[in-house]
């Protein structure tokens, strides 16, 4: 209703006109829905008219594969060199020569790596961070996940610099050339961030085979967008005076960029680096399906065999790795944002960098010791322990004792909520959806948005994926709805109590860094496979932005306005409902938007637990290496995300403009 009102103000049409239009539109769609038998072509997209986009894509991929194999092979060879080095250094061992004269140089000792992790934390965030980071690595070692975790880390350590460099240059280009930003970079970023992770894997699998290299390329592509955005943002945020200064100092364009603007933008760039690392970790886990190996592969194998204990253990190792990497890179970003502090510089290297020197020394010594003392080379079995049986026992206990309750809950949810909504969504006429979404786009922003929204929606139908699209929309919609239902109240409460905020913040910070895979494991243990599992995992994954943005939105209402409300005699609840909430609404809606996008991303990954939607389509295509089918389904998912995102953004922009 608010949207209708604001739209009419902007367009100078009375509210009644839009009300009438919407009533009419809904009536038409309802009629179509009721008359589905006679108007079948408007409900289900006719099979005969399906455009075989998937076939075209497949043909294109086949052509690339057969004609450009020299290129893909050389890329594999070039990227393989640093990757092999990192893999050997951290996880495997260096092997030179063959057969009898094989010389083996050992990988870095786990003791040394743990110590180096501690020192890195210590260097950027004092002892507390050192303990946390070192502790996470020690945890990984003691729980017997060392080699897998180091495989994962090796992939990340090669993919991340690649992302940073690519992202930096793409960002600079977009910042320099507005047309490039508008026509190439922005749409590409939108697409890259909404295409589900699975869909990235298919072309990589096809072009580069089932290998760590193709996993690394997929990771690098997936994790680059935040760096591009951070670069653009950072450069545009450099104060104009600094820009003027560089001109007045007589900088050439290159000097200006590299010596003034980029260093000044460093705090923002570091935030981008943190996001790149976290996305890379997330993707490396998922890319285990195409040969990344490592922790993700362990989870995948365990899940397939329904070994919940093992899955949980590998999952927790991912969590430990994620927390260590996140806190470390965040501390670096934070230090950068705070700015530099002078200190005595010492010409002697080891005095100037005591932590670095110590870390290198420990790594070298422990690794050399590893040659003679096996305990340094590999984590001795004697000191590792496993919690897998414990988890298994716990799950068994829960299943035995609470089976009926859980099952009743599950069945009730399926029968009373999921199935009816699903039936409604899948029966929804495609033409009606195109029409209604287009109308919403027109009302919110105008013809361009209407055409975009309607066109993208029509794509899903025209490619013959309408039913699966709606299955995705239904599951994603329900999950996002529940996530908002849980998240917004928590955010509201947190915004009104500093104590609650102190509790909530670390929890959502941690939830946010966990790779999406990790959410599935505990839910699968209790609810087995199916839509309910997918829904619960998605809610847990997508609840974070709803909480965060709501809390932030309420808290950023200017104190002067609240004081003004108090002085005019508002009761606390009046202040809240009539001042804070309306002013925070755009921000809250932004959170809802984020929640929807995250829910969409998660729903797709939940294909692993047996949903029947577009995600499953991609998943099947992945296992069959059917590039056309996978990419088209992936695009359809991306388009759902883009449609939701654009409509929400248009609405938020409008509400913002109204609030001033």
């Amino acid at each position, binding site marked *: 209703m608010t949207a209708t009102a604001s739209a009419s103000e902007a367009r100078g049409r009375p509210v009644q006109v839009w009300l009438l239009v919407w009533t009419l539109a809904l009536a038409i769609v309802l009629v179509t829905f009721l008359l589905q038998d006679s108007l079948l072509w408007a409900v289900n997209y006719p099979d005969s008219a399906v455009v075989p986009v998937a076939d075209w894509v497949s043909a294109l991929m086949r052509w690339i594969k057969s004609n450009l194999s020299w290129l893909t092979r050389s890329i594999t060879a070039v990227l393989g060199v640093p990757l092999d080095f990192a893999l050997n250094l951290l996880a495997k061992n260096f092997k030179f020569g063959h057969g009898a004269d094989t010389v083996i140089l050992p990988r870095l000792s786990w003791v040394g790596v743990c110590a180096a992790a501690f020192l890195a934390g210590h260097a950027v965030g004092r002892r507390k961070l050192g303990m946390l980071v070192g502790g996470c690595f020690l945890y990984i070692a003691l729980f017997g996940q060392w080699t897998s975790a180091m495989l994962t880390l090796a992939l990340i350590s090669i993919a991340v610099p690649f992302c940073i460099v690519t992202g930096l240059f793409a960002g600079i280009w977009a910042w320099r050339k507005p047309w490039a930003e508008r026509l190439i970079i922005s749409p590409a970023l939108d697409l890259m961030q909404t295409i589900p992770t699975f869909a990235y894997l298919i072309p990589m699998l096809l072009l580069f085979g089932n290998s760590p290299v193709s996993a690394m390329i997929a990771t690098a592509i997936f994790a680059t967008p935040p760096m591009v955005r951070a670069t653009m943002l950072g450069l545009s945020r450099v*104060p104009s*005076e*600094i820009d*003027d*200064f560089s*001109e*007045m*100092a*007589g*900088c*050439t364009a290159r*000097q200006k960029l590299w*010596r*003034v603007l980029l*260093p*000044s933008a*460093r705090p923002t760039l570091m935030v981008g680096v943190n996001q790149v690392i976290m996305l890379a970790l997330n993707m490396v886990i998922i890319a285990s399906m195409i040969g990344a190996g490592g922790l993700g592969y362990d989870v995948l194998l365990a899940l397939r065999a329904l070994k919940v204990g093992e899955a949980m253990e590998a999952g927790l190792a991912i969590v430990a790795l994620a927390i260590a990497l996140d806190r470390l890179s965040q501390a670096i970003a934070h230090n950068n944002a*705070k*700015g*530099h*502090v*002078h*200190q*005595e*510089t010492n010409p002697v290297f080891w005095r100037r960098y005591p932590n670095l020197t110590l870390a290198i020394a420990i790594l070298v010594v422990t690794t050399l010791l590893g040659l003679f003392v096996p305990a340094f080379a590999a984590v001795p079995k004697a000191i590792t322990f496993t919690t897998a049986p414990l988890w298994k026992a716990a799950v068994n206990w829960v299943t035995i004792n609470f089976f009926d309750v859980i099952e009743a809950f599950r069945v009730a949810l399926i029968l009373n909520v999921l199935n009816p909504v699903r039936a409604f969504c899948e029966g929804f006429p495609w033409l009606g959806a195109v029409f209604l979404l287009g109308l919403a786009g027109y009302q919110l922003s105008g013809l361009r948005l209407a055409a975009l929204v309607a066109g993208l929606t029509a794509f899903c139908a025209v490619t013959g994926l309408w039913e699966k699209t709606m299955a995705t929309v239904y599951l994603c919609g329900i999950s996002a709805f529940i996530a908002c239902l849980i998240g917004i109240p928590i955010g509201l409460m947190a915004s009104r109590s500093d104590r609650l905020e102190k509790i909530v913040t670390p929890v959502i910070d941690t939830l946010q860094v966990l790779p999406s895979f990790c959410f599935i494991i505990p839910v699968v243990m209790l609810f087995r496979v199916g839509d309910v599992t997918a829904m619960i995992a998605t809610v847990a994954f997508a609840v974070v932005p709803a909480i965060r943005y709501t809390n932030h939105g309420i808290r950023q209402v200017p104190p002067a306005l609240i004081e003004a409300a108090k002085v005019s005699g508002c009761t606390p609840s009046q202040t809240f409902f009539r001042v804070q909430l309306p002013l925070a609404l755009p921000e809250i809606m932004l959170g809802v938007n984020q929640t929807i996008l995250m829910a969409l991303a998660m729903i797709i990954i939940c294909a692993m637990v047996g949903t029947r939607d577009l995600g499953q389509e991609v998943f099947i295509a992945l296992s069959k290496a059917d590039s056309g089918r996978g990419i088209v389904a992936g695009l359809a998912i991306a388009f759902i995300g883009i449609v939701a995102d654009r409509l929400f953004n248009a609405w938020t922009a409008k509400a913002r403009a109204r609030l001033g």
Partner: protein
Amino acid sequence: MTDRTEQGADAAGTPKDARPIKLACRNVWKLFGSNAANFIRERDGKASMAEVAAAGLVGAVRAVDLEIRQGEIFIIMGLSGSGKSTLVRCMSRLVEPTHGKVEFEGKDLLKISDAALIELRRHRMGMVFQNFALLPHLNVLENIAFPLSIQGQDRPTREARAREVIDLVGLRGREQFYPRELSGGQQQRVGIARSLATKPEIWFLDEPFSALDPLIRREMQDELMRLQTMLHKTIVFITHDFDEAIRLADRIAIMKDGEVIQIGTPEELVVDPATDYVAEFTRDVDRAKVISARGLMRACDGSDHGGTVAPDAKIASFSASIVAAGKPFAVVNGTGKPIGEVTPQAVIDLLAGIDRSGAGA
């Protein structure tokens, strides 16, 4: 406008300034909006405010003519949105003017090549910014040496020069500090030192003290005057603070809505404001500190003189002694020849704010 002030200058009896013109604006326009360049070219560089508005353009700087002479402190004063910042950016070509000429030593700045402009900025122009514009990742020494490093000077040379200017602005001992560790006043000292490191001939100061506390601002103004007595730069100083302008200026240009309304010495502005807008600024000024003996001088009527003063001496500097003496003071020029006299009554009238017509210029 310019004609009027020039005449005013003659009437006030200021000797014509013989110093060469360093920088001049000739009918400089900066218009924002589509097709602004054509608009002003078609009108041959002439347009009224109403015409500009009717064309849907925003006139940030309109028809500005001014000449800045070597070694003078030229202040551009105006309230926010008056176009003073845009004007100074037109002068340094940080902003490309829509129309007109900016002449640096008689050469049109707008016609020179990018390479020549870079050379010019590297060696002959310096600029100080309102919010200091220090590079956060460099320490004081590196910040100050930065413009030299851009020119390709080697480390020992540029650091030696940087240390010279650090001493000049009194920052010795802070070389290794980073900007965020310094107070606002200290940061601006770094900004000043940095702009002086290249030994510029013309020095742009864009509201350099506006972000500082009043007491620090005062201190920095004194510091600027101290530096100027040593360095004799040509200074273009932007401010929105009329008191600051009066304190520092050789000449002031007052801007409103993108136009220069009046250019003159502080005394001329106070004594003879061109418009009510200018008069509004000058109303609360302590006139005794602005008006000189020349401004209150009348022809000698043969009475006794209680002392002598130079024509440029401000009234405030001798008001106490003239009132105590109770006799007129002779105004003498450089050769000691009397050119008129100032009566105690005229000084008392000025201090009391009584305006007897004919008492002023």
